[in-house]
């Protein structure tokens, strides 16, 4: 019987001809990513070895990536001390893919991995972050795990207990209308299948819209696959994947375009007509509470956030800059922009996007995760409303359970910054 792309990847990672849905495997890991929570992983890792009387040594220091992004630069002595301990561990173990708080190579983990070529098609990628699903955009089977599970990966090089997941085939056809973006596709999908509609399953993306989409857009789609509960999102790799890896990620080695079989078995097929989509808004306090923008237009907002691992890439900043160029962020609205990496930040500087945004009144922050999850800057006041291009709108997400977060595309966020209320950019004037 035909195999899905994830079945094929897992078969290869376990040196088997094929695998069945529901089997529990211990696949070999190609890239194991952590951020500041490496502090907890280290703790658990040392506990594993403490009982063995052998020195604690990671299985392969070249396959571990550690990126500081959640609280950068450190917001507290606790974080600073955690980061210090991790630096010492990185040096002691000889971990090579380490991205410290630096303007030349830092950024958000889910941007750093793709842009440095740490993820290739066919890879098994695990990360101690739920949005590790992002890396499926490059044709990898990538999923989030907990810190203890990562400690086990660091020790063994295998991720234990991986149940071969069922796959939902998502077919997106047609051309996206102006100001309708990849974010709108994924929000629409999550609204359709619900926040747990893909729990324990994979979302495999197909169709002409996906084939014509840049890697940046695919990263947005796969990033939010977890918001439908999915173990992973994945786009079968193609010429665009190769272009991105060669031109933007500097990959020189072999790239294998692993693909699902024609007769692969899917548990569900979801079809989306991209040409009929309008901008989508995920309303508080669940990501599947999705409405067309027309239903919430005019709602006053206090803070606009553009950035994050979901929508902080160069094309997202370009969208925002093109809408805000020569205009002003409405008085009474705070607009925060945080690029997904310093590489993007530098390009946005060169291309003038940062200047456009700052002149309009936006605050351009350093790359990082802080505002998205309410741990570092950009917290909301009581009863305040945020409109954000980030990935979660859970109660308390932006640091205050007595506030509201709405999620949208960069185009909607930028247009709304000008008006001070949720605005459909398609209505003109932008």
């Amino acid at each position, binding site marked *: 019987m035909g195999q899905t792309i994830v079945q094929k990847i897992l078969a290869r990672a376990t040196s088997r001809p094929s695998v069945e849905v*529901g089997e*529990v495997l211990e696949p070999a890991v190609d890239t194991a990513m952590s951020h*500041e*929570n490496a*502090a*907890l992983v280290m*703790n*658990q890792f040392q*506990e*594993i070895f403490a*009982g*063995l*009387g*052998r020195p604690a040594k990671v299985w392969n220091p070249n396959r571990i990536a550690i990126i500081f992004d*959640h*609280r950068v630069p450190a917001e*507290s002595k*606790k*974080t600073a001390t*955690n980061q210090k301990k991790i630096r010492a561990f990185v040096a002691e173990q000889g971990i090579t893919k380490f991205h410290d708080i630096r303007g030349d190579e830092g950024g958000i983990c889910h941007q750093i991995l793709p842009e440095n070529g740490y993820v290739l098609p066919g890879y098994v990628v695990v*990360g*101690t*972050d*739920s949005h*590790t699903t992002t890396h499926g955009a490059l044709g990898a089977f990538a999923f*989030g*795990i*907990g*810190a*203890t*599970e990562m*400690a*086990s990966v660091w*020790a*063994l090089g295998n991720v*234990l*207990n991986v*149940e071969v997941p069922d796959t939902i085939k998502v077919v997106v056809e047609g051309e996206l209308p102006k100001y309708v973006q990849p974010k709108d596709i994924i929000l629409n999908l999550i609204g359709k299948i619900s*926040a*747990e509609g893909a*729990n*324990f399953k994979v979302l495999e993306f197909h169709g002409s819209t996906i084939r014509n989409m840049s890697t940046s857009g695919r990263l947005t789609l796969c990033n939010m696959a977890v918001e439908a*509960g999915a*173990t992973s999102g994945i786009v079968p790799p193609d010429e665009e994947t190769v272009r991105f890896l060669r031109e933007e990620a500097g990959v020189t080695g072999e790239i294998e375009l692993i693909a699902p079989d024609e007769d692969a078995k899917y548990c569900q097929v979801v079809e989306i007509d991209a040409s009929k989509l309008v901008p989508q808004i995920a309303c508080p306090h*669940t990501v599947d509470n999705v409405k067309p923008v027309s239903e919430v237009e005019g709602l006053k907002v206090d803070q606009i956030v553009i950035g994050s691992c979901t929508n902080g890439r160069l094309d997202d900043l370009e969208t925002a800059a093109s809408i805000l160029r020569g205009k002003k962020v409405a008085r009474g609205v705070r607009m925060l922009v945080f690029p997904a990496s310093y590489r993007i930040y530098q390009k946005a500087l060169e291309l003038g996007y940062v200047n456009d945004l700052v002149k309009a009144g936006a605050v351009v922050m350093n790359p990082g995760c802080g505002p998205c*999850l*309410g*741990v570092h800057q950009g917290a909301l006041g009581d009863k305040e409303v945020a409109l954000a291009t980030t990935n*979660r709108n*859970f*109660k*308390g*997400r932006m*640091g205050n*359970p007595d506030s509201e977060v709405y999620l949208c595309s960069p185009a909607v966020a930028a247009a709304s910054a000008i008006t001070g209320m949720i605005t459909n950019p398609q209505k003109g004037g932008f």
Partner: protein
Amino acid sequence: MAKVIYKFGDDISTDIIYPGRYMATVLPTETPQFAFDDIKELNKLLNSEKTEETRIIVAGKNFGCGSSREQAASCLKGHNLTIVARDFARIFLQNSINLGLRTVICPEIEAEVGDELEIAGDKVENKTQGKEFAVVPLPKARQAIVDAGGLIPYTQKILKQRMGIE
């Protein structure tokens, strides 16, 4: 037998269980104080009434959705809680298994605060209401981790085999 001390609906995220602002706190010995910190009455209940007894939280679907933060599982384990939910989000469930937090998948569960539940193998008995509900068992491979006492001893077992340690 144990008492239900709190009841939730669907989609309780890890931001509710363990707010992001406490994520710099990582050690399982330190996380329990922040469990459900934004639900003051529950946080207070957990932190003020120290008990060795198992207490139960009942929830709807998709409990533990969102972030992979393991603190969400370790903070609940520290309070000796058992979570009976209609179902769990994947990463939270795996973290619970890895750390030994007792999670019970009970798709039809009906219970109110104060009810006494008996959790036995393949069913949950609500003694107060006189009803029984089927439990979805863990796959064998996951149960093996539970039986080993969590992922750390389980990994140690594999490492010992690989290193030839008796």
